[in-house]
């Protein structure tokens, strides 16, 4: 049985606690985007996707998720741990020497749940398209999901992939862009404007949806809507409007927390705003 919205929100709260604790423990990593995308990850892994934590690289008969903006690895790792891919205690090793939880996700350390290395931006959409093509060739009806940062859209390869997928009717693919309007050097509008993203993706031939990424009910509803629109000849793009740092008031909406770890005092302040629902790792 699928969890209720309230149950999903409780899981998300714990994942947010994990994120700030992980980043604090190694004094590095990317809390801002991780917190902003927590509701999406929670909805995906605990409600929307059909997946098996007894990890198999080839994912035959199950949905696949690819994280293209690999720097938000803390939310990915915490989600995978809570979903049962590996022990939650391993989250404490994040970014530390000899860890499977590398700064950016990798298959190199054989961490269950990771199917491609990411971090160097712009590559995940192509990879996801490849996996989606293989599913079609194999007669596998399951789906492929991807997540991208909005700043990541400045990479040219994204637009190569954007052109390819509709031309080839890759309609078993549900991509999402985390539209938080922030990147390392500042607001995307100042660094390099993304323009009208809805119109751009539509013009490329995608079925474009929008959702409120920090509203669990809307995230679940929109992802389910996206699923219902697969198999109709078009890849699906969801523009997910989030706030970077969502859940921690002093981190919200600022690019300053893109890649900065909280100090001891800030950690306590943040944890005070995030309910411990499933027990800290």
């Amino acid at each position: 049985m699928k969890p209720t919205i309230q149950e999903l929100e409780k899981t998300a709260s714990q994942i947010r606690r994990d994120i700030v604790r992980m980043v604090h423990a190694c004094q590095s990593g990317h809390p801002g985007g991780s917190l902003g995308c927590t509701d999406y990850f929670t909805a995906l892994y605990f409600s929307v996707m059909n997946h098996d934590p007894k990890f198999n690289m080839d994912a035959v008969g199950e949905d696949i998720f690819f994280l293209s903006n690999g720097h938000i690895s803390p939310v990915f790792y915490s989600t995978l741990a809570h979903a049962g891919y590996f022990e939650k205690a391993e989250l404490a090793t994040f970014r530390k020497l000899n860890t499977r939880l590398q700064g950016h996700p990798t298959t190199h350390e054989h961490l269950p749940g990771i199917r491609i290395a990411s971090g160097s931006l712009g590559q995940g959409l192509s990879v996801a398209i490849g996996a989606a093509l293989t599913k079609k060739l194999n007669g596998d009806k399951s789906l492929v999901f991807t997540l991208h940062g909005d700043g990541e859209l400045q990479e040219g390869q994204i637009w190569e992939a954007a052109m390819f997928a509709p031309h080839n009717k890759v309609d078993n693919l549900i991509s999402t862009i985390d539209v938080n309007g922030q990147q390392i050097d500042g607001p995307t509008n100042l660094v390099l404007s993304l323009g009208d993203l809805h119109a751009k993706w539509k013009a490329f031939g995608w079925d474009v949806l929008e959702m409120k990424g920090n509203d669990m009910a809307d995230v679940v509803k929109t992802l389910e809507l996206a699923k219902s629109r697969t198999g109709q000849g078009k890849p699906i793009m969801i523009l997910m409007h989030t706030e970077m740092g969502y859940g921690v008031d002093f981190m919200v909406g600022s690019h300053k927390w893109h890649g900065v770890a909280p100090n001891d005092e800030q950690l306590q302040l943040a944890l005070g705003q995030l309910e411990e629902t499933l027990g800290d790792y």
Partner: protein
Amino acid sequence: MKKYTYTDKKDTRSGFGAGLLEAGRKNDQVVALCADLIGSLKMNDFIKEFPERFVQVGIAEANMMGIAAGMTIGGKIPFTGTFANFSTGRVYDQIRQSIAYSNKNVKICASHAGLTLGEDGATHQILEDIGLMKMLPGMTVINTCDYNQTKAATLAIAEYEGPVYLRFGRPVVPIFTDPDQKFEIGKAWMVNEGADVSIFATGHLVWQAILAGEILAEEGIDAEIINIHTIKPLDAEAVLKSVAKTGCVVTAEEHNRLGGLGDSIAQVLAVHNPTPQEYVAVNDSFGESGTPEQLMTKYGLDAEHIVLAAKKVMKRKQNAVISI
């Protein structure tokens, strides 16, 4: 000197095309991708027989590498095809992260490598690709010498699990290897046993090495000629065994002398058996327009230059012995 003759000449890329078709027939997991160069890569026969297993990516090589990486998830064995320049330098980070670091079973198949691409000039004549690819951990690097060897190598890499860079070329060259050969990845091929100098050659330079061996034989020099088709993993045992006998080395390749076969061999020798070595390679420069033959002569990549290098390195060996 063992006699090598040929009755037919073909381009190595056609060997790839034939190998790809056969690999496709043998294993239905083999798929092919191309970035708007189907004819140049000789992929037509595969596409005709397996249209559903071919992906036309358009002029978007970065996307092609990512799609190939993704297609391995679920068991496909993707062969990407484009020119060597666009197969490597243009997409280095895509290969590095999505294929090599992610250990994906992608076969990067690259035609028009080196100077013998000819008239198109330096923009397309990559001479750095072997170096780029061999520096990637886990990447196998192969450079074939004729039609038959390229076909055999294409079949062999389809059966091998892991990322591979397969380098071949455009010009029509003699077919002198066994049509029924079994290609062994990482195993050097003894072309001619000799005692005076070891000539290690790869790609189009193997035939030139044979011609050089004949010239040297006429002058009483007994050259050992070994084809290193697999630059990585290098058959270090074959290199050391040969050098223990001859005491001097010539390496020959259609590549920049920096980062190519010569450097791989020099590294083995420096550690295990320091030996005089001469490079027949492009001397850290770009290419230019011209016919393949004109370019190979101008840049010193022919039998004549191998002969000169052999004599030079033999003299260095003798001087080294005298000084001791």
